[in-house]
């Protein structure tokens, strides 16, 4: 049994478990912020409504007269954009709460997916560098995404989205302070 003395806080699960009986089957998972789902649904619906609104305004010939074809084409735009918006909002509604992460002494995990259920496991030993990313909307909501890069390359970047900022910061600290980070090449 080994413990981490300098574990930053109780923000994340970091149990004292013997390394011999760890399994990805019984991870203690924590949910990401519920605000992440709200933001995603908001953005998806907002963007599709915005596109439709622009087409509608053009269609109503308020600023300029559009050719005949345009009003026919605009129907297709609504018929495509709106359902896609609604469907992806629905997807976020069901899929986002399934995004969960786990932090153990030696590795971090991310479980996600509504149809394609995945668990990605990243040993801390193999982490090359870390980046905390925050867009304007995420900042407003107090969220951040934590990206962890391994030598596996950009396409295999391990990312936990929608973390509460404080949690993201302490998780970053946990990884940065991890003794393995100075071990591996």
């Amino acid at each position, binding site marked *: 049994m080994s413990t981490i003395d300098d574990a930053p806080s109780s923000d994340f699960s970091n149990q004292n478990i013997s390394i011999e009986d760890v399994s990805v089957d019984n991870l203690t998972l924590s949910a990401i912020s519920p605000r992440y789902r709200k933001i995603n649904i908001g953005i998806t619906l907002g963007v599709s409504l915005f596109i439709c609104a622009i087409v509608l305004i053009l269609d109503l010939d308020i600023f300029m007269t559009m050719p005949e074809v345009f009003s026919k084409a605009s129907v297709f735009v609504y018929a495509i954009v709106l359902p896609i918006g609604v469907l992806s909002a629905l997807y976020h509604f069901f899929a986002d709460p399934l995004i969960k992460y786990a932090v153990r002494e030696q590795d971090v995990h991310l479980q996600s997916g509504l149809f394609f259920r995945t668990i990605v496991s990243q*040993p801390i*030993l193999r982490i090359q560098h870390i980046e905390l*990313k925050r867009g304007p909307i995420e900042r407003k909501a107090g969220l951040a995404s934590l990206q962890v*890069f*391994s030598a596996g390359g950009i396409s295999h970047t391990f990312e936990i989205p929608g973390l509460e900022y404080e949690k993201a910061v302490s998780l970053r600290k946990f990884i940065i302070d991890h003794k393995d*980070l100075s071990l591996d090449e």
Partner: protein
Amino acid sequence: MSDQIDINTLDVQDENERELAQQIASDEWLRVSPIAIAYFFFKTLYFLIFNVLIYMLPVFAFNLNKLKEHPVEFGLGALGLMSLVLIGSVIKYFFYFYRLSADRVEIRQGMIQKSHMDLPFGKIQNVKIIQPFYYRFSNYSIIELDTAGSAKQEANIVAIQLPLAESFKQKVQANVTDVSATPQDASKDVSDSHAQSSEKSSFHTQETLLNRRSIKDLIIHGVTNNRVWIFLGAAAPFYEPISQNLDSVLTAVGLDISSYLNYEQQSLGIFLLHVLSLVMIIMLLIVIFSIIGAIFVFFDYRLSKSGERYIRRSGLLTKHEVSMKCSRIQRVVQQQDWLDILIGRVNLRFEQNSAGAYQGDQASQMTSANKLIVPSVTPTEADALSQDAFAFQTISSLEYQRISPRYILRLFLFPCSPFVLLAAVFAIYQATILSYLLGFIVIVMLCLSCVLAWYRWGYYEDEDFIYIRKGFLGRDFIAFPIDKVQQTKITQTPFMRKGQLATLRIVLASGGMVVPYLPEEQVKATVDKLLLRVEKNKPAWM
């Protein structure tokens, strides 16, 4: 500049080190010099020119006359664009901070999309100090930091005083054990004479020859592997004269293509025969060119081992020498096309870290240092060479575990079913014996393909290594040490959940690999085993 303490510009080692120590001790976010605005400006400009404007050249060309008529407007537009870029650069500068601490660099940047990067010194593989032309007249430089995970990532300190950068480099390199041997450095072109002399000297340093390829092997390689692109790439400058003169050349040798392929003057049978023979001639040409390509790149191929390094030398005109440290090899791939399987040959590849991989044409990929290729060896040679690199079992003759037959059904449903449906609809719509026959053949072929793709999949795992077999008409054997694992992933679709199956993905520094439709329990146990091995023994991956 306000945050930085002015130091004497004399290159005094102590002073720089003290300055660096001060920056580290202060633990404060520092701003770079305002000269960084120039860096951001030129970088954005460079991006605009090579990623946006270059594609708009045709638009400009078409409207050249209009541009000539309105030079003022055009000039103002360009000026406006430049000012926007400049404003953007100033903003970037104001939002760019870095912080040095005893064991890592942090970089914080971005106004809208904010990012905060943490780079431990221990993970930095290479430090480059760059002084672009617009920094020449100042005492500033850019520090470019490479980690294995940051091939395309920005990890630069964009404007730092040159002497300070030098001390920084020294400090970081003290942490880095093996900086000189980055994959890019390992490849070099050597001139003929140089190769000979180095060859002589290297035999003195106990270099053992592991494999040679004869011209016969290279001809086999050219036939079984399409290396025609090497030849076509080299012939590119001559395309235009060739195509211009092709017709007259053919007529001169007595072949009048247009009458040869005249559909109206010939019966269908003769016409088809003509088309067929033309196709054959073209195929023959392709094979010949492919052989020439193979000889071009692999002529006088020699693979040798010197201490802990593999060295590969080959090339007809340009001699290429690629060396690869054994410990950097991530995985071994034995690749066989269907023709290779028939005649019993294997292309063997040792692959290392792919971050920063060459994205060149085929010829440069063949000679790239990331993949060390041994062309068209026999299976026995391939197994022996693989076992020279790692303590593998005999890769080609293992009892591979088959993946679940459910995979056949999955392949049939996607991506095959639309084509099956199409073939069926076509057959029923035409309603002739021929159409039924054709539809039947297509559907049977599709089903057989699904079965064949499933049949190729195989998985084998022993104490230290994992072996994967996959393919379709050809087949690949992939083998790698568990110690090299970077990341794992388990994926499960609802369809797989029903059969208690899962897809395993293992990421190495040379890229990711997938084995689909293995038993769920087994996949989880394997992932646990891999994580345990890596986390407990903490093996180095290079």
